[in-house]
């Protein structure tokens, strides 16, 4: 039953993800994104890593996708002014096809895990303690760097979006 649930969830996640790309209406696309995120968190539940599942729901489905929807509604995009594809430069096209091909090849070559031993190791997100321990020991540096990157991105957004005319905003 577990594997059936997993397959159904995986399929619906993929369909919803495709819906994000295909939909012309931005609100529909955001709702598909939400469905796909919920599907992924369902996949985590099926894999018994509840912590990751609920973190995904809390952060991405609960806040970030809601912000997307918020922005989409504020801008009120109709989705009709979409740039046509044939204007893409040749380099970009070759690059895109190359990247997708590389991804597919690497998935075919390295995507298979030896199912005997690895499947028995509990996922890092399986229990709170294991997860927190890994986060503060093995993955401390990546976490710090990511935090720093996010800080830089936030500063960039403030600089880009705020108009400093007459310097009245920064007293």
């Amino acid at each position, binding site marked *: 039953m577990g594997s059936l649930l997993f397959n159904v969830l995986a399929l619906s996640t993929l369909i919803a993800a495709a819906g994000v790309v295909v939909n012309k209406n931005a609100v529909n696309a955001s709702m598909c994104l939400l469905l796909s995120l919920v599907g992924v968190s369902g996949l985590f539940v099926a894999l018994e890593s509840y912590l990751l599942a609920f973190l995904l729901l809390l952060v991405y489905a609960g806040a970030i996708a809601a912000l997307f*929807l918020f922005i989409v509604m504020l801008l009120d995009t109709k989705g009709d002014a979409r740039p046509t594809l044939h204007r893409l430069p040749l380099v970009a096209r070759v690059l895109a096809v190359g990247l997708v091909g590389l991804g597919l090849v690497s998935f075919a070559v390295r995507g298979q895990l030896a199912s005997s031993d690895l499947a028995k190791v509990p996922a890092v997100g399986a229990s709170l*303690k294991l997860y927190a321990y890994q986060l503060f020991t093995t993955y401390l540096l990546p976490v710090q760097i990511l935090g720093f990157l996010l800080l830089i991105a936030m500063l960039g957004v403030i600089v880009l979006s705020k108009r400093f005319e007459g310097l009245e905003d920064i007293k």
Partner: protein
Amino acid sequence: MVEFYLQLNPVVQGVLKGLAVILVIFPIGGACSMAERKVSAWIQGRPGPNRAIVPWVAWIPLVGTFLQRLGLFHVMADGGKMLFKEDALPGHVNKFYFVLAPIVAMIPALTTVTAVPFGAYLDSAGMVVPLVLANVDIGLLAVFAVSSLGVYSLILAGWASNSKYPFLGGVRASAQLISYELSMTLSVIPVFLWVNAPGMEPTMGLGRVVEFQSQPGFWGGAWFLFIMPVSAFIFLTSLFAETNRQPFDMPESEADLVGGFHTEYGAFKWGLFFVAEYAHMLIGSGVFTLLFLGGWNPLPWIPLATFVGWLSSILPIAGHPIFVGVLSITIFLTKVLAMIFFFMWVRWTLPRFRYDQVMEIGWKKLLPLAIANLLAYAVGIALLQS
């Protein structure tokens, strides 16, 4: 009967348990709408609803008049109206999302209850075992995660209505709910830092929090309301904002937005929003009770086990597991209903904030306070437990 229940398929058992809980939440939601009108009437010095009556009951001499004055039959009248009224679908709306929004409102409201323990019983060894639908170790995180999905119903309702006031309500709702979620999450971390002492199996479960508030001794038996008053205050304020209750009911805001996100809704679909709001309040009050008001312990410094011990010295039957279970659920529900009364009391006492004030309170006051509170408790707990 117990044997018959235990031999059922676990899935069927789960469905039955879930249905039982939902069957309790729905009527309480309806009763709350009645209580809201009665409480508002008391606070404003009016008699409140006191007319509706079923003919046969009206013929009973004294009791009939008493029930009529109490206004109990207005619940039935309201419910009947909501069910049988024509469910109009305005022509200018996005039909799919318009119908979807009230359904989406109900799902998180009823799903979060799975991780909230609502009582306890004593097992054969005299240990207190919490009664909960799904005893997962991430408990509160699951509640927060699923209830954060509730914002979509408001956004979708506002957007799908395709008219100005609901749209403004939806935009306000999304900004407000996301803003106050931060302070809410930060305010409960001190509780879990305190509860997850070194050497214990870490958990975010709410059962453990109550267990911690029922220990012997002065500090052990104190409810977290006394140990962490600032956390409790921040959590309660954010709870008001998250459940869209006055003084934070910006998404609805009858004075300036007609009805906010549900302006275009009527009949049963509106009723679903209404029940979802009360279900959110119920769950929120339940979580607050578990975190800060000692859960199913009758009084501070008097845990359930001690209380049952006293009772069974008077009444021998009181030690029976079913009796303890019912007693603990009763204590818990009493506290939750008292919290809901508090919600109503605040609603009819405080005036509504302006929208910019809501944002300022959330980001400039509550969030810094929550972070300072978290830091203070983190340092304090580290010093205490080292």
